[in-house]
């Protein structure tokens, strides 16, 4: 008996892989340290911390490795930005939590969640953009429905993808847009 090998997903000739992988540039994550914090105390004792209560109600702390910035609120909640991977974001958040712990607060590490991921890549050909307003923004803002990702597409061929909660969404969005972009390659 013949068992034909049918592929799980239909392979159409147009959807050959682009061979380009978007690079992650920024990850934004949040975590709950689960204890009330005295921000003035933290700002005074921690290195690389700034706190202007009149301007913003959180301590802004930075660490060099991984190079990230954290916003620490008196409620005990924290936002960690600037990491280039999910693991780095988690590691950085843990480091901040340890700093806070060392200052005497009973910090925990609850509900760590990645809120946003930003990736970028280059399709290596110029793109013919239509319906963009050069006076307002030099690129096209494309809101993809599935996955729900916003892509910023520029004439140079560089593409920025944002709004993802998972790495796979960035990759999927780029694979979706690549064939469309090829159709709009600028004729030189």
């Amino acid at each position, binding site marked *: 008996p013949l068992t034909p090998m049918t592929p799980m997903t239909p392979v159409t000739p147009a959807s050959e892989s682009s061979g380009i992988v978007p690079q992650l540039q920024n990850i934004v994550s949040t975590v709950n340290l689960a204890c009330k914090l005295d921000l003035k105390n933290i700002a005074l004792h921690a290195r690389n911390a700034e706190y202007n209560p009149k301007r913003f109600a959180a301590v802004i702390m930075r660490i060099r490795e991984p190079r990230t910035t954290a916003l620490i609120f008196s409620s005990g909640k924290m936002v960690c930005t600037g990491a280039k991977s999910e693991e780095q974001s988690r590691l950085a958040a843990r480091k901040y939590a340890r700093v806070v712990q060392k200052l005497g607060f009973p910090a925990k590490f609850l509900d760590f969640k990645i809120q946003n991921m930003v990736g970028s890549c280059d399709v290596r050909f*110029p793109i013919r953009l239509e319906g963009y*307003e*050069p*006076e*307002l923004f030099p690129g096209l803002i494309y809101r993809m429905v599935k996955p729900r990702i916003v892509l910023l597409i520029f*004439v140079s061929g560089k593409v920025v993808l944002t709004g993802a909660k998972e790495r796979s969404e960035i990759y999927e969005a780029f694979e979706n847009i690549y064939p469309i972009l090829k159709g709009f390659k*600028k004729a030189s």
Partner: protein
Amino acid sequence: GDRVIDVGSEWRTFSNDKATKDPSRVGDTQNPLLSDGDLSTMIGKGTGAASFDEFGNSKYQNRRTMSSSDRAMVNAFKEITNMADRINLPRNIVDRTNNLFKQVYEQKSLKGRSNDAIASACLYIACRQEGVPRTFKEICAVSRISKKEIGRCFKLILKALETSVDLITTGDFMSRFCSNLGLPKQVQMAATHIARKAVELDLVPGRSPISVAAAAIYMASQASAEKRTQKEIGDIAGVADVTIRQSYRLIYPRAPDLFPADFKFDTPVDKLPQL
């Protein structure tokens, strides 16, 4: 023959004595396209002694608001006319703006936004549709609304009315910028040619057409007897002089190919400033 009712304002009688007031018996011009009829009336200021009460105040001082449902719209039309006046826009653009505003207003999809912002955005769209676009910065100059808000309303209105507008080109602004700078027709035509060629040869990908136009004007003026500085051009076009420099650097290498064939050089191409 057919008798058509003239809905314009009443013809004035030009009598010798200008002292007499000109009583209009039929009210203001009807604006049926816009204010939904406008058949309401107001109580006018009294003239005789009987119209003043004991303190000297006039009785019936309340001029009832006319057509209150469209009061906001009438106000917006006034503001639109004011804005258009400041930059000397012709009546056809103002009419188009009013029409756009009415459509947006009736649709109510942008109801939350400031009317002035919507009016400014309508003005911007009308200029575009009439083929004489004004930059956002030029509209900003006559409106109290920020460029960001006008831009937001602009996108929302295009969506609400399901219209689109043509992309702006460098040529759209040439005649206005050049005449503001006092440049002769030859220079203007040269600048137009330079900008068009620069875009055709794709020397300036990703640059705003305004910046490219400004750089082209700079190149053309520097090659002619009527030289203008980057700062002067930047002031008129609303672009920073560094921006002009950036675009100029991109077109400078191909300068000889960009000038029109019949251009009379006051300063030859190889003596053009190199920034």
